[in-house]
């Protein structure tokens, strides 16, 4: 690829890609909840949340805490959760990450994985507790396989998001 844009439309496309790829890929991952799978056991982790979390850990500077609000609302509407569930949990996690970033000088990959694991556990716990408040009395242990799969899936999504990020910033 050339280093210098050939035309103004080229410049516009690069600018669009630079600005919108994180938001659009996260929305696409959230829309995966529309997949026509009928499951009896909660096994697959929340893919939209996983991709958003990976983007946030990889590129803290492009995310504002209120971005999680809008994406959470989208997730609530598409996945059929009670309205406000993902809005609340995701924004809380984003604010917590802001605090961690301001305290911590740097993070390495293992740190990221640990933070992601904690965030996934917090998100599942929150969803489970909200379900409990709404009258769904299930053991938290039912979510164990889903949690484990989410934590294991983090390196995979990290690779995918890295590739997307390289394409986003390619010149």
């Amino acid at each position, binding site marked *: 690829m050339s280093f210098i844009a050939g035309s103004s439309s080229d410049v516009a496309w690069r600018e669009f890609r630079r600005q919108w790829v994180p938001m659009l890929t996260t929305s696409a991952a959230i829309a995966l909840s529309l997949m026509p799978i009928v*499951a009896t056991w909660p096994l697959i982790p929340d893919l939209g949340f996983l991709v958003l979390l990976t983007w946030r850990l990889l590129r803290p500077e492009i995310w504002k805490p209120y971005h*999680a609000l809008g994406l959470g609302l989208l997730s609530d509407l598409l996945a*059929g959760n009670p309205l406000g569930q993902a*809005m609340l949990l995701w924004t809380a996690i984003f*604010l917590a990450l802001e605090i961690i970033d301001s305290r911590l000088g740097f993070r390495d990959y293992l740190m990221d994985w640990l933070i992601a694991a904690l965030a996934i556990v917090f998100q599942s716990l929150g969803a489970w507790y909200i379900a409990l408040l709404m009258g769904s009395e*299930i053991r938290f242990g039912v979510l164990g396989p*889903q949690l484990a799969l989410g934590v294991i899936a983090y390196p995979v999504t990290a690779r995918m998001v890295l590739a997307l990020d390289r394409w986003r910033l390619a010149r």
Partner: protein
Amino acid sequence: SRKAQYGLFIGYVIALAGMVVAVLLLAIAIIDPRGFNAIKGAALDVTTPISSGGRGVVRFFGGIGGTVSDYFQAGSQNSRLRAQLQATQRELLKAKSAESENVRLLQLLRLGGEVEDEITIARIVSSSFQSPRRFATLAAGSAAGVGVGLPVRSADGLIGRIIETGRWASRVLLVTDGRSQVPVRMVRDGTPALAAGRGDGTLELRTLEVGENPFRHGDILVTSGIGGIFPPNIPVATVIRIEGDSAIANPVADPARLDFAIVQRAYMPAANADLEVAAPQAIAPPVTSVPTDLASPPSALTPTPRQNDPNYQPALQQPQPVQAPPARAPATAPPQPQGTNR
């Protein structure tokens, strides 16, 4: 710089305000689960065509896998199916005799045959597979007469009930969801129980009786009709293991395999009763008043026997004192059910 700090600060303020709004939304959702039906129904309407389009693709590829494995297992499958067929034919004979006996007994009781109460038949297109709740999406909504609270079943057994409706799509609370509780009875001896979802694809059966656990491995449970909503005698689950006072059961209708679902009318024996049954109650004078016109034709005020109502279940209802004033009832009035013939 100052401007950047302002921007950061405002970002935090917006996020915190948004969280407060989210908490309020959740509180409303907990207090009034139907509160956001309009918004969520619209979202369902928009997204269901995507899922139902993809459902065809999944079925196509799933079909290919099934066909290939069928080819390789043809021999063993053949002998197994042959044995199964013989067993089934024996069962069929038994069932046929039971059916004819059933018809005869129903005629004896002058009850009608089974009332078909289906509102619509639609495809199940997707489910919540990422959350602790167990919902499925049905490709039919209020335009087809689907309303919140209606029971949903397949040809095999009970699936759940509707909790949200859009115009062309609706959301079903599966029986395996933690919030779902279905009154059931055991087919073998009629023990009543409550089937509550456990969130992991199984049901927990709780019985009200103290003492020995009445369930055995393989017991079949059907809806009892108590409490309304679910019509009686729909298969719900089979017991797979016993755990202390309760039992764990597998739902009969596997949502992952099922395809079409039938939305039925809510089962409400008292409210669905015929108008002529209800009319005398409406015009009857208060019980305390002294009857004066005993000479009036008794047939006009005599309620039709409630046994004629196909939905009527004596065991479920207390004798109601307001049916007709006792002094007014003529000597030829049919005997009222006493709620004890169970």
